[in-house]
């Protein structure tokens, strides 16, 4: 076969059930935490904290359940560029709304 040196960037990595169990418990813990926090009045920090916990859970799912931590650089780059593009679209839409009629509806 050709060029065995460079192509073996990764062999198919099997994530162990133990890892899945740990992530599962962490996700349940995150769910409990976000519900508990929602009962405390933190003003503007309520949405911030809720989204922070949701994003932490999202990252756990992406890295471990979706195996991104163990995948090729191509996959990692694809996922990262997707997240980046999503944030760009959100912030550019917001810039537009905020610079036109924000607070005057």
């Amino acid at each position, binding site marked *: 076969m050709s060029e065995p040196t460079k192509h073996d960037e990764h062999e*198919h990595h099997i994530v162990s059930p133990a890892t899945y*169990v740990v992530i599962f418990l962490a996700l349940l813990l995150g769910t409990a935490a976000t*519900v508990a926090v*929602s009962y405390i009045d933190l003003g503007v920090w*309520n949405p911030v904290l*809720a989204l922070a916990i949701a994003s932490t859970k999202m990252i756990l799912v992406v890295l471990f359940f*979706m195996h991104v931590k163990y995948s090729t650089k191509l996959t990692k780059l694809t996922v990262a560029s*997707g997240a980046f593009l*999503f944030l760009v679209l959100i912030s550019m839409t917001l810039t537009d709304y905020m610079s036109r009629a924000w607070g005057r509806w």
Partner: protein
Amino acid sequence: MSDSTAIANGALAEEHHEHPSYQRHHFETVDQQFDATNFAMWLFLLTEVMFFGGLFMAYLIMRNWYYPAFVEGSHQLSIFWGTANTAVLIASSFTMAMAVWSAEVRRKGSLLLFLSLTLVFGFVFLGIKGIEWHEKWEKHHVPGLHQYSIAAFINPASDPEVHKQYPDDKPLPADMAQKTEEYFFLYFAMTGMHALHMVVGVSILIFMIFRAKAGDYTSGHVTFVENFGLYWHFVDIIWIYLFALLYLISRHS
């Protein structure tokens, strides 16, 4: 065919190793096939991010425009069912991850068990969603249909169950109360599109259970199970955000 191509093909055929039936002939190795389909699946998921992103964007803007209506609208949702459904969906993601592992280590019995559990959790999720939607229907909170009622928002005391949990909710002026319809429109659009993805998911799961029974995924061919897993986890992630945004962030105004 010219002689030179025949020779080239002959040379190629010699290099061509025995390969498993599930390896398409245009891929050099199973690994390469796996990477290519995995990449394609992620590209599909990115289009899904953009699709749901539009809904999230609309929610962000609308919530800022009609903040009081969105706060009191969200008080109509049940934290209990929302939390239960989040736990169910996370459990289904876990069993799906275990199904992928079962396919990788070629254990057919365990693959069937975990696919079936994922299917059951998927149905439980949809059932709970059905209970919640039905309550909105009964309270005339389905926008655009069936005589939308603003009674609970112009007079919170008329809805004793919610009023007990949120005694500080003030009566909204009629025009703002009408904007709760926007909240429920987005609620149904977002949870509805999410549930549609779940319906597609459980349909594919049923198909996969039959193929798994025939032993199709436990002979080294994990691509389909792996990529379906990506889809299922993605739908889980959407719910994680929907739960936070629709149910949790507006409990205190």
